[in-house]
């Protein structure tokens, strides 16, 4: 007991000591981001919607049910039990391995804009009381592209889950591998796939939740390798982007191509789940996979 108290004391000291030393991404600083206007036009149904209502409705358009893109922090708020999220793996710094012009400025811009270190956060959380590791990609940070840091953090989140013997849930939203980091980004695909393998070999559950949009190197690595793959309605899922395909085959793509419902029909997704039901479905799945002593 004494020991435990000491550990907590130490941890508290550590926390206060390093309080200002990193970008805060923890949920404590998260107020749900209200976009600039009070009213916004839904891009799908062109209806003017009141932002406040939309936010209360989990970022779903009230008139047409379009699922808007969600910041990682808001995603946490609507998915995990409040107050249970503990962020892990901070302090990574993105470098510029190929000395690309303007890449560093771009990163620092996005850091300021999104208040995130990188396009991925992960940590421990509970969903309706079920403990899990949760990882979330943020498409607002350079299109959620996977560079060295994102690849490393994804790998680390799997390793953390192995260490804690916990299931892992990853929300993917990404344009693919990050072009600016060249071949290093490409290698992250292999690295993250291996992480899935190691986690899987321990007999642990990995749920991949695909959100709009998930394309390129992320689809071609850990996003497609979940034991269970869920997707939000009408999310773009694919390896090549629609524009590239149109250019290659020289014809217009059919309506709904590469969307969740389409991919579900083709057999690449287990279930398309509405955002309102997502938390329940996840907690149910976690419950069904709990370890029986």
């Amino acid at each position, binding site marked *: 007991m004494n020991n435990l108290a000491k550990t907590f004391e130490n941890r508290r000291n550590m926390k206060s000591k390093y309080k200002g030393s990193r970008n805060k991404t923890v949920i404590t600083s998260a107020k749900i981001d209200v976009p600039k206007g009070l009213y916004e036009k839904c891009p799908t149904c062109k209806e003017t919607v009141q932002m406040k209502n939309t936010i209360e409705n989990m970022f779903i358009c009230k008139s047409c049910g379009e699922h808007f893109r969600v910041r990682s922090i808001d995603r946490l708020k609507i998915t995990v039990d409040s107050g249970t999220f503990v962020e892990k793996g901070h302090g*990574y710094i*993105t470098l510029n391995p190929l000395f690309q012009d303007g890449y560093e400025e771009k990163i620092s811009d996005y850091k300021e804009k999104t208040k995130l270190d990188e396009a991925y956060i992960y940590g421990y959380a509970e969903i309706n009381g079920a403990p899990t590791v949760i990882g979330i990609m943020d498409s607002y940070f350079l299109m959620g592209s996977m560079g060295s840091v994102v690849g490393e953090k994804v790998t680390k989140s799997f390793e953390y889950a192995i260490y804690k013997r916990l299931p892992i849930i990853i929300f993917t939203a990404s344009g693919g591998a990050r*072009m600016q980091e*060249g071949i290093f980004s*490409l290698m992250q695909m292999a690295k993250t796939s291996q992480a899935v393998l190691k986690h899987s070999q321990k007999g642990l559950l990995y749920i991949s939740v695909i959100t709009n949009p998930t394309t390129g190197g992320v*689809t*071609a690595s850990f996003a497609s390798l979940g034991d269970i793959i869920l997707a939000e309605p009408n999310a773009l899922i*694919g390896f090549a982007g629609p524009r590239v395909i149109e250019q290659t*085959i020289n014809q217009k793509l059919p309506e709904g191509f*590469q969307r969740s419902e389409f991919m579900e029909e083709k057999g690449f997704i287990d279930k398309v789940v509405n955002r309102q039901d997502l938390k329940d479905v996840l907690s149910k799945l976690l419950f069904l996979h709990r370890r029986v002593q």
Partner: protein
Amino acid sequence: MNILDKERKVRELESKIKGLGNKEMSDRLKQEIENYKQTAMTNLTPWDRVLLARHQNRPTAKEYIEYICEDFIELKGDRLFRDDKAIIGGIGTINGNVVTIIAQQKGKSLDENLKRNFAMPHPEGYRKALRLMKQAEKFRRPIITLIDTPGAYPGLEAEERGQGEAIARNLLEMSNLTVPTIAVVIGEGGSGGALALGVTNTVVMLENAIYSILSPEGYATILLKDVTLASEVAEAMKLTSYDLEEFGIIDRIVKEPLGGAHFDRILTFQNTKKVILEELYKLRKLTGEELRDTRMKKYREFGFFQRFNYDNL
């Protein structure tokens, strides 16, 4: 003046030799060509290497296999949908060592290229590759992959059949193999389509091959919105064998003759065979577990970033 112009000039001079009856004159011309090659065809720019990697006459995977293997039996089909001609695979022997070879095959003519889909595999190609790899593991055969593709095919049907899933599954299963695996990038190594055959113990690359996250054209279009800048961004992309060796992404470079592999095919094949055999004997000494662990460890290390520990702050 890029490498293709230089090559044209060499070819012109060579055609002149044929017309000459005089031995002394032709010897002098030959010497001249040799000198020209020495001065003009060393120190290639990255864009030159891109052009060479895509060269019309560059030897394709089949030619390598024909030379390297004493016998080769092609095995077809993924058992699920159909046989993808962009990827060929089979069993062969190299100096008596039985190996499974999987390769991306470009065509020599337009007709063949249409048949081979310009070496851009569909998902079934990757699933065929995976099937052959699993088979190789069962019979404890080493696996050699020859990579030469502009990328996985970005088409409608490819998407319908799960291009992303097929590549992802290959990445995962290749990491888990317990037999020696060697990848040789013989031409273009384009993006995920190349990596799906490239998660191996040893990655070898021909001197003038390229390996990158996407084509220089794609890169120029996406980041600079101007496709004509492709030749300039090739420099910045660091896609040549020497850059990648420096990064530690590839393990070894196979030297090519001056002016590219197609100037002296046999020499290229010999060099490649020698390197493959050397690497194979090195990997043979390891057990299955060791092979898997070293491979995993190697790929775990890739990445270029910094992390501040709390203690360092």
